[in-house]
């Protein structure tokens, strides 16, 4: 049965329908801190997740995102702070009693059980009878498109199939919260893309509150309702993917999410910075930046480029991205910037071409201390 067919089944009130929209619980992380020896993995992390919301925690390795997820799951404990699920502090509740479905980064299917038994495991722990267990597990395998593989053992399944079974297994217990710990990172690019869409579709249909941890910005931005960017155990910014991309709060967020070029500018204090011969409005966190020489952070689509003899830069490289072409330009003073241009307009901008790079000045920019 395809996913659409599964959707029909859900609509007609089958076993999957029992996991109806709105089954998710609100989750609140309050000032979570956790240290491992001298390393402070979490440093006062606070986060509100609405029922049914899909929140991604994004950050480089060691930023504390996995620790946060494991504290929510009950596999780690916080030194201070609390996790509130559905209005109740879950600190005294062991992992086995938290009703949280989890999909792990590494393959976590029980090798001694078939796909069907893996999915039915959580139901078995809930003392659900064999017939109902089989029905529900089959329906869930159907939902992830793996009903024909029900009798197969994990070693007979591909990586992508294993993670889909793991997802079905996590969803089988009708969890209050679904926790995804980089579930796609072990998969190849194509499978990752498919599974990404499948997870998002299922999550939206079932309305399960979901916390997703990843270091892959593309994954986070494409799947989550809101993305929290973490650094050094703290949340730098949490916002919708478009807000995060368009108006990053800090230089770290700006450079971690999407591509960003640093261009030297002069900050006059207040809300204006001079860059590429133009005064541009400044947004985001810049109270700590002192007036003077600064770096201005600009996205490739935030710059304009024209071929012109004796311009301020030279094209060094070009990458075809479909409708757009990304140009690498070396500005005078050894400043490398990336500029996007429609592919049709970029045909004559071959490496070595002299160009003039400018900034329109209509969109506000971020500034940071000179690197």
């Amino acid at each position, binding site marked *: 049965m395809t996913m659409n067919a599964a959707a029909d089944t859900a609509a007609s009130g089958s076993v999957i329908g029992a996991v109806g929209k709105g089954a998710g619980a609100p989750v609140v992380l309050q000032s979570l801190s956790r240290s491992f020896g001298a390393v402070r993995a979490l440093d006062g992390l606070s986060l509100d997740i609405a029922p049914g919301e899909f929140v991604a925690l994004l950050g480089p390795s060691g930023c504390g995102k996995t620790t946060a997820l494991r504290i929510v799951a009950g596999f780690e404990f916080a030194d201070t702070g609390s996790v509130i699920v559905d209005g109740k502090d879950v600190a005294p509740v062991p992992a*086995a009693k938290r009703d*949280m479905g989890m999909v792990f980064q590494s393959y*976590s299917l*029980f090798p*001694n059980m078939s796909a069907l038994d893996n999915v039915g495991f959580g139901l078995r722990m809930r003392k659900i009878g064999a017939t109902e267990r089989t029905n529900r597990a089959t329906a869930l395998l159907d939902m992830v498109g793996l009903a024909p593989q029900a009798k197969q*053992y994990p070693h007979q399944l591909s990586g992508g199939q294993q993670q889909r079974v793991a997802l079905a297994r996590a969803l089988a217990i009708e969890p209050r919260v679904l926790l995804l710990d980089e579930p796609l990172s072990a998969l190849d690019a194509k499978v990752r893309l498919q599974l990404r869409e499948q997870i998002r579709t299922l999550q939206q249909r079932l309305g399960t509150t979901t916390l997703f941890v990843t270091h892959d910005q593309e994954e986070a931005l494409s799947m989550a309702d809101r993305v929290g960017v973490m650094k050094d155990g703290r949340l730098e910014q949490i916002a919708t993917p478009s807000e995060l991309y368009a108006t990053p709060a800090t230089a770290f967020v700006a450079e971690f999410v999407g591509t960003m070029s640093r261009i030297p500018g002069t900050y006059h204090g207040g809300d204006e910075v001079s860059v590429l011969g133009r005064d541009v409005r400044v947004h985001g966190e810049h109270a700590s930046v002192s007036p003077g020489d600064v770096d201005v952070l600009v996205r490739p689509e935030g710059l304009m480029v024209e071929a012109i003899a004796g311009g301020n830069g030279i094209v060094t490289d070009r990458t075809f991205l479909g409708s757009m072409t990304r140009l690498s330009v070396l500005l005078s003073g050894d400043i490398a910037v990336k500029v996007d241009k429609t592919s049709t307009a970029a045909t004559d901008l071959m490496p070595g071409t002299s160009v003039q790079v400018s900034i329109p000045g209509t969109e506000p920019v971020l500034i940071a201390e000179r690197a």
Partner: protein
Amino acid sequence: MATVASVSTGAEAPTPVRPAAARRTFPVWRWVILIIAAAYFLIPLYAGLKFAGLKAFTQVTSYPQFGSAFVLSLRLALIATVLTLVLMVPTTVYVHLRLPRIRRLMEAITILPIVIPPIVLIIGVLKVAPGFLIGTPDMLGLEYVILAMPFAYRSLDAGLRSFDVKTLVEASNSLGAGWPTTLWRVVMPNLRTAILSATVLTVALVLGEYTMASLDNFQTFPVWIVNFEQASGPVSTAASLLALFVTWILLMLIVTVGSRSARKRGGAQVQLFSVATQTRQTVGDPE
């Protein structure tokens, strides 16, 4: 008489079907090694058979205390295996999950029974054993548990290294399973091969152990063989060979039964490539 079982402990992916080309080009030197090894193991057996003669085999069972010695050895094998597994499985799992840093220390501790002389172990056990056990054959079972520890620990440790036990345990917990259920339904089935290896090694060890039994003054089967050797050379050799075959069949049985379901699930097989005679003191050497 001691037996050596060759056992694979890893739970790797099932052995892939070898391409036809690889099968055709089985190098000559492999045959040479195989033949030398086979000769090394088989010639003493053949010599033993020739020395004893077939008649001795029919006489063995009618000799006094043959049955009781054999039953005692089997009983000790059972006690030692059960106790070893009950002690070592939870211990190794716990070390892997919660105290991975002390794994090296565990390795060092578990090797001690090999290093420490049997007499020291016997005296040590006598000091701490409960009174009701002292002087009973079950006491020897306890001593064998210590003796089997290095082999059992290594088998189980290798088994636990072959799969991501931490993730499986956490997955099981997150699905609502408590500790006993997780151990029984998730960890143990995936440790099946390692547990079988530990069992095979423990049984082989106990059925062939002479020194401790002799020092403790119990007539286990190896002790009986050595005592009997003085009376009748051929019959003693026949008894050794008989014990060797019985042990071998027993181990094959454990391996076959244990591997059947593991194979079905893609787990590793316990492979018993060879069973060989070892050490003069236990096998009546046909001179």
